[in-house]
């Protein structure tokens, strides 16, 4: 081995050492996972309001926003005889006015006033200049007619209790608290924890289980398909073992979105 070969070996060793060092320092940071996002502060609240906090339902019926069509009037701006055509539609609203007012009891008192007040103004306008009249008439005279005119009361009676978002949340929390002790089921494999199972649960009024049925299995990994059956059974087992659920508000049992039937999601990742 002469001098140039010895130099070659030296240079080669140093160069490989340098490449290795660069790779160790550089590639180590390539595969690094994105930094974890900031933790979200949560507070555990023991006291939950299980009574309805719904605002008083309003008794007022919704407005009937339908004004009669008065289209054909303005279609003839250059018509030679606008005057004779005018009186025709004019009486109609005037005649129609009294009928609903008689049918309407007290609540809509002030509503009929605007059409009344408008009537003379419109009449004046009609008599003053026919050319202007045709331009304006696109909005019917009685566009505001239906507003507040029809005080038909709502037929539905006021419910005794109503599910609000708040009550719903607290009932969900109560159900979850009741089921958590049974969620620590032995999984068939650590990866199977990624599978989530939706169970539709039906309870009786005293909180005992009437029926439980798997609605849907969430599984993104085709490799875990073999565990789905087992995870279904586990989810049903959770519901069976931890019912009856006590302490749910009975007045919210049978209302819409009440706790008679709800969907429970078995998610082992969240428990562990």
């Amino acid at each position: 081995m002469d001098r140039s070969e010895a130099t070659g070996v030296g240079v080669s060793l140093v160069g490989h050492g340098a490449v290795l060092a660069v790779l160790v320092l550089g590639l180590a940071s390539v595969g690094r996972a994105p930094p974890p996002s900031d933790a979200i502060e949560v507070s555990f609240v023991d006291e939950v309001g299980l009574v309805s906090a719904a605002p008083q339902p309003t008794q007022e019926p919704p407005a009937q926003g339908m004004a009669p069509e008065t289209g054909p009037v303005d279609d003839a701006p250059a018509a030679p005889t606008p005057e004779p055509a005018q009186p025709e539609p004019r009486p109609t609203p005037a005649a129609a006015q009294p009928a609903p007012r008689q049918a309407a009891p007290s609540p809509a008192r002030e509503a009929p006033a605007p059409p009344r007040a408008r009537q003379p103004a419109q009449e004046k306008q009609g008599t003053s200049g026919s050319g202007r009249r045709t331009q304006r008439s696109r909005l019917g005279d009685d566009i505001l007619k239906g507003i507040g005119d029809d005080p038909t009361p709502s037929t539905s009676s006021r419910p005794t209790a109503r599910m609000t978002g708040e009550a719903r949340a607290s009932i969900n929390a109560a159900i979850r608290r009741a089921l958590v002790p049974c969620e620590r089921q032995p999984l068939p494999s650590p990866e199977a924890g990624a599978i989530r199972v939706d169970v539709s649960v039906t309870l009786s009024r005293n909180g005992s289980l009437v029926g439980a049925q798997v609605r849907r299995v969430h599984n993104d990994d085709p490799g875990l398909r073999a565990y789905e059956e087992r995870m279904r059974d586990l989810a049903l087992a959770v519901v069976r073992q931890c019912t009856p659920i006590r302490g749910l508000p009975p007045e919210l049992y049978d209302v819409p979105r009440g706790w008679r039937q709800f969907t429970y999601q078995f998610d082992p990742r969240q428990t562990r």
Partner: protein
Amino acid sequence: MPTDAMSPIALFMQADIVVKVVMGGLLLASIWTWAIIVGHWLKMRRAARESERFEREFWKSEDIDSFYEKKGRGEHPSAKVLAAGIAEWRRSTAGRTIDKDGTRSRLAVALHSAVAAETDRLAARLNILATVGSVAPFVGLFGTVWGIMRSFSDIAGQQSTSLAVVAPGIAEALFATALGLFAAIPAVIAYNRFSFGINRLEARLQRFADGFHGTLSRELELDS
């Protein structure tokens, strides 16, 4: 998978023993390749420079014998060719009768074989570059195939096909192919480059030898 699992050392440490041997061999091949590349480059550069200067001075000098005594002991190819020619000349002209044709052909053969010997000496390590360049990818591929086979047997063993089980094994297996290419690419480039350089140097030595042969054969005619 830990965050630094992609570092080459971690990949090496996780690997199977067969893959480890493959990786180690490829790393050694790479080191050897680069040692040859650097050493050969230095040697060729020096040989070309010194031969050029030697030939320039040789053609300028008046007396071959005195030039040979003064500078002919060099280690570079041109000096070796000159020495071979002069040794043959001295042997052939030592006797009382000189066979001119025989001397000419012997000189030609001696110069030619000196050129070939010098070329061989310079090209001695190039075959290693050629070997590494053609074989290293296959060796790396072997390591990869072995590592992937092992990954699949892991899958079979754990009854789990999730990517987390397979990925580390495949990454370490592919690292073997990466090492093979890492060793092979410079070797192939250097081999082509150096064989071109050797051919050029050989052609130049051959021209020098032919010129020297012409000079000596003219001397033969003058002597008679």
